[in-house]
């Protein structure tokens, strides 16, 4: 992650992005019926009269889905209020009822926010409950739109519970847009209401993109980008769209409000339908579903059970370690923040704790390293019982097979080398390699660095890594000065 603003837009233009993120909730069943909510099953095996929209069927809402949605709302600092389900009417074959059941003017969650690792606050307008659509596969055509092409529809996904999270149009850089989506994913995984897999479609991002002259505040015509399959793809799609709109403006033209489809392979987007007017959906309240009215007790219970969220974890680690935001974000991403704070609490040096975690514990599985043993290792290193090189080796063994650092160090015969012994070795090496030594003493910056590497390497080999690299550097400097 970088905090720098990417120089993607020509000077004088500003990006305005709002994101609509659809998240499938990890319930056992669909939103309004008992069909399984499961990805990857045989087509049309998880269907029933309710999710097929057959006449006379009656939807009853899934209590767990509603609870998950409220949990997500609270994690996004939303107001959780009484919600009303509504019908959004439109004809498209992936919606067998010919309307989508969603929330319109009374969403369950509204007015929230998400804090990015660099402190930028993304406003969240709403996070409403709705049902997913079926999945269409388009067949045939041979490239000609008027040929006998057709679509095949699988309704297994129709009626799967979704929350649609709508951000304010406040994202000003591609980096912020990316950080927002990964921040949402982190929260979803932390509270466990969705598996948030973009590649399986359980998290889908549509981006509303517009541009404006830098320093102005108006919202200009936006285009909605669809078919974004990854965070990286989103970054490319937003950049392409912003540049396209700037091109239009600078050539005296205007973008028109439309949906555009991102083609990841081609690296470009193509115009889809002009966006339907909101009125054209003829929203009305769903008569078959009664209001969702959360009680104060329910909301209090959700808040009480809320796990520590990434933004709070970053703040805690920053407080404990005094490290900068980028390093802190990395450690929280890796789930190493609790270990770091525990080690610091046990008296391990904060800077060393962070350095060792950042550089030497960049592994997928560090489950065998306990907070206690990690703290002990750093304390040993700080006390000079282990050199930096030895500490790294001990840590590597702890990652592989667990164990206690003091026992590992003992088994390996590690003891930090005494100063006298080391200086004797350095002198011997200088005597054995006069040419290299001359280059170290008389050479330019590059030579000096190269030769320092050479001598340090030799010492490490001779001592099997027990020498302290910094002590070697000091001795070399001393000898060349004298």
């Amino acid at each position, binding site marked *: 992650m970088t905090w720098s603003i990417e120089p993607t837009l020509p000077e004088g233009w500003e990006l305005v992005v709002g994101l609509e993120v659809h998240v499938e909730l990890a*319930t*056992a*069943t669909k939103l*309004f*019926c*008992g*069909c*399984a909510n499961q990805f990857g099953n*045989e*087509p*049309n*095996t*998880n*269907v*029933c*009269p309710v999710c*097929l929209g057959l006449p006379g069927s009656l939807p*009853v*809402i*899934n*209590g*767990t*889905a*509603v609870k998950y949605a409220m949990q997500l709302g609270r994690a996004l600092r939303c107001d959780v209020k*009484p919600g*009303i389900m509504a019908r959004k*009417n*439109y*004809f*498209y*074959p992936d919606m067998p009822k010919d309307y989508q059941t969603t929330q319109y003017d009374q969403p369950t969650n509204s007015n929230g926010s998400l804090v990015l690792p660099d402190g930028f606050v993304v406003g969240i307008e709403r996070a409403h409950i709705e049902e997913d659509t079926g999945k*269409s*596969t*388009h067949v045939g*055509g041979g490239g000609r*739109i008027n040929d006998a*092409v*057709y*679509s*095949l*529809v*699988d*309704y297994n996904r129709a009626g799967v519970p979704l929350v649609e999270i709508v951000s304010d149009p406040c994202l000003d850089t591609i980096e912020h847009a990316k950080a927002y989506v990964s921040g949402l994913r982190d929260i979803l995984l932390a509270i466990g209401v969705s598996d948030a897999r973009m590649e399986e479609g359980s998290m889908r991002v549509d981006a509303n993109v517009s541009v404006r002259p830098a320093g102005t505040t108006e919202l200009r015509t936006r285009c909605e980008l*669809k*078919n974004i399959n990854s965070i990286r793809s989103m970054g490319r799609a937003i950049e392409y769209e912003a540049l396209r709109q700037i091109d239009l403006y600078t050539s005296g033209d205007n973008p028109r409000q439309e*949906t555009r*489809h991102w083609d990841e392979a081609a690296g470009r987007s193509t115009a*889809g*339908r002009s966006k339907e007017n909101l009125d*054209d959906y*003829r929203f009305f*309240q769903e*008569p078959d*579903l*009664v*209001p*969702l*009215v959360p009680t104060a007790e329910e909301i209090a219970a959700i808040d009480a059970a809320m796990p520590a969220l990434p933004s709070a974890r970053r703040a805690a680690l920053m407080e404990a370690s005094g490290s900068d935001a980028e390093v802190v974000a990395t450690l929280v991403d890796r789930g190493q923040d609790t270990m770091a704070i525990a080690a610091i609490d046990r008296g391990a040096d904060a800077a060393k704790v962070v350095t060792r975690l950042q550089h030497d514990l960049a592994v997928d599985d560090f489950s065998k390293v306990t907070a206690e043993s990690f703290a002990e290792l750093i304390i040993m290193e700080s006390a000079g019982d282990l050199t930096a090189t030895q500490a790294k080796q001990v840590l590597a063994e702890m990652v592989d097979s667990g164990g206690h650092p003091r026992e590992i160090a003992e088994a390996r015969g590690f003891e930090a080398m005494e100063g006298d012994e080391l200086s004797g070795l350095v002198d011997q090496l200088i005597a054995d390699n006069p040419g290299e030594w001359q280059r170290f003493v008389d050479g330019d910056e590059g030579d000096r660095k190269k030769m320092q590497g050479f001598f340090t390497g030799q010492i490490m080999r001779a001592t099997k890594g027990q020498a302290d690299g910094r002590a070697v550097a000091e001795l070399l400097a001393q000898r060349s000065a004298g």
Partner: protein
Amino acid sequence: MSDRITRDEVVHVAKLARLELAPHEIDAFTEQLARVLEHAADVESLNVDDVPPTSHPLPLVNVFREDVVTDSIDRDEVLAQAPAAESHMFRVPPVLGEER
């Protein structure tokens, strides 16, 4: 003709509902819909200051279903109802100009 709804609005709503109306039908429905809206306007003229907004007629909230899987229905039986099916899926005409 009433000014509650225009002929163009009826044509637009018919298009949204995928209804093909003959010219004389458009005229007839414009007239009828105007009467419906007229009736709604009558209701609007009532003083309802003391009546809370009501979304549903029943005094019910929070009717929930347990998140427990129940049997789905037989796929072959479902697909047999469809005008066309292929590869265990519903076969439908493409919708031009829509997402693909």
